[in-house]
């Protein structure tokens, strides 16, 4: 047995350097700037700067609109996660039962993942446009007056559908892989014992899929927290009456449109804390405990 040992102390650092540099420049430094900014009150041009301590944070948690945004984000995240994972699981189960055409279906279902979120947003905006869209027209025939420009529930439904649509593909792939990893013998044994398809799913398949499901849950929540920005921007712009103004969109609106940098920075820091917590949960809890 030959073991290679590098005596060089510098080399590992040298090899790590590009990655560390990228992390520093594109993550740590801006994050540090945001953290610093969150303690300041500053005019847009940066001409007058004043240290205000935690005032930006205090104002944030007193602001009913921020609390509303938190609530909207929770509703939105849960809805997107449930809809996209539920649909993806159904599709994956259906494909798993197929023998010959499974690959063709898999390829087709994965396609939407290649669509950029902004384009997906525009597409759904067209489909649901109250004036020129096809869906409001059909819903009108069915007796429902769709108008996501005024109705807050309609708007939430629209952004949930538009955000879930793309994510279904991603979740689907993982579920298909997860299903394939479950030994057929287990399900066959259950079948021989007299368990029907529904019973087999809930007692054998779904528990064995739980590592995949937990992983996807975290990934999906992170997705709804950040990557849904273009979808919101292209469809509702956070409206009507802030009913779809999720946290990341509010950071953008307050900081880049409203030029209120202190508050916007404080919001980013809160968002960062949420994601750090989620990641910690994923590593500490899910990766270790969901084992069989």
């Amino acid at each position: 047995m030959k073991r290679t040992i590098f005596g060089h102390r510098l080399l590992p650092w040298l090899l790590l350097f590009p990655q560390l540099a990228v992390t520093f420049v594109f993550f740590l430094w801006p994050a540090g700037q945001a953290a610093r900014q969150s303690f300041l009150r500053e005019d847009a041009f940066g001409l007058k700067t004043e240290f205000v301590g935690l005032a930006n944070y205090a104002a944030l948690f007193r602001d009913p609109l921020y609390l509303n945004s938190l609530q909207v984000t929770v509703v939105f995240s849960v809805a997107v996660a449930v809809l996209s994972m539920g649909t993806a699981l159904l599709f994956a189960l259906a494909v798993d039962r197929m023998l010959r055409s499974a690959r063709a279906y898999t390829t087709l279902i994965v396609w939407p993942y290649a669509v950029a979120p902004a384009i997906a947003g525009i597409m759904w905006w067209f489909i649901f446009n109250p004036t020129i869209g096809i869906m409001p027209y059909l819903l009108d025939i069915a007796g429902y007056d769709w108008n996501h420009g005024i109705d807050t529930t309609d708007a939430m439904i629209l952004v949930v559908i538009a955000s879930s649509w793309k994510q279904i593909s991603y979740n689907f792939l993982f579920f298909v892989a997860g299903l394939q990893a479950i030994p057929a013998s287990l399900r066959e044994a259950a079948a021989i014992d007299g368990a029907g398809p529904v019973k087999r799913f809930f007692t054998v398949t779904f528990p064995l899929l739980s590592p995949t499901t937990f992983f996807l849950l975290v990934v999906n929540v992170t997705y709804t927290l950040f990557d849904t920005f273009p979808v919101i921007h292209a469809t509702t712009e956070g409206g009507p009456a802030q009913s779809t103004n999720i946290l990341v969109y509010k950071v953008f609106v307050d900081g880049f449109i409203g030029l209120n940098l202190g508050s916007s920075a404080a919001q980013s820091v809160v968002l960062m804390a949420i994601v750090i917590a989620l990641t910690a949960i994923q590593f500490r809890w899910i990766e270790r405990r969901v084992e069989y």
Partner: protein
Amino acid sequence: MIRNLAVSGLALAASMTAAAAQERVEIQWWHAMGGELGTKLEEIVKGYNESQDQYTVVPSFKGTYPETMTAAIAAFRANEQPTIVQVFEVGTGTMMAAKGAIYPVYQLMQDAGEDFDPSSFLSAVVGYYTDTEGNMLSMPFNSSTPILYYNKDVFEKAGLDRETPPTTWAEVVDFSQKIMESGAAPCGFTTGWISWVQLENLSAWHNQPIGTLENGFGGLEAELTVNGPVQVQHWTNLAQWQKDGIFQYGGPGGGNDAPPKFYAQECAMYMNSSASRAGVVANAQDFEVGYGMLPYYDDVEGAPQNSIIGGATLWVLQGHDEEEYKAAADFFTYLSSPEVQADWHQFSGYLPITQAAYDLSTEQGFYDQNPGTDVSIKQITLNPPTENSKGLRFGNYVQIRTVIDEEFQALLAGQKHAQGALDAVVERGNALIREFEAANK
């Protein structure tokens, strides 16, 4: 030897031309004019660059108004700011308060020794951009005011006179009902810019204050007062008309869904910027468009007063050298010349910013050949502006515009009454103004 001489002679000539070329001072102009307006703007700049050999203006399109403003501010923080930036009217409060960042235009023109007469500009336009001492802080470029567009063919189909637009809100309702009952169109009217047209201009048009301290012109301590009886009545009506189908909401901000409703002949009337004219004419394929002034409530004393402007002006930013500022001043003189202004006004539907440009357009017979194109200018100059109708100036107004949209949506969704929605606009708006005041003390 001779050959060598010839070569060095050539090289010398080449370096001299290069030197001559280098003498041209280059300045950056960041703007927010996309599409046809952007093409026209580049044409104007090209005309300027070719008209003299000292300065070169380089225009760059930076996206929407808020994006352009944010880009310029971010650039200023990074010390990469352009010399000239186009900022929309609601950004005026922010720019004005940034004293160390801007180079006021009146001072620029004075320092550069340009022949500059502020009184040649239309007061309704310039008033928006002058400080309390009457000094012009930015250069008006594209200013517009909302007017009423209507579908002449639908009017005729409904048995109305195709040449007579409604003048009062009572007529708007009456006409809309006739149009809807006759089946000429399914909706009476729609509008772009709820904030700008149906609140700010509504207030000015009826001589109602938008805020204290002369609508904010008097200082950063101003407060909003848009929850007065006229505004509340109008918003109550709008909510009712939306329910009745007379009015259809076109969305927040500029109201992206409004123009298609008018173009598709779904709504017979449409209120929006006079600068939408080019777009309206291009899209009104199957019908003829008429123009009118904004409607008013005839039971409100003092109405109609005059409407206020929107659009953008050019701000000069600090941090460049003297030569570049000379270039900017020279370019501004060119931009405000009657020929350039008249051309821009006639092409775009923006207001002519100088009296001379208006006179020139009249002389050229533009208004006779294009009836209705002078509605906008007649409307802003209908009466001498009062404290309530010369414009508005509040800090953080970009965000306040969003607040107005949100509260209007809450009104339409039935979550609030007009009084509650407008009270909320005032309360939330004032909080934003206070925040701005604190950051800019």
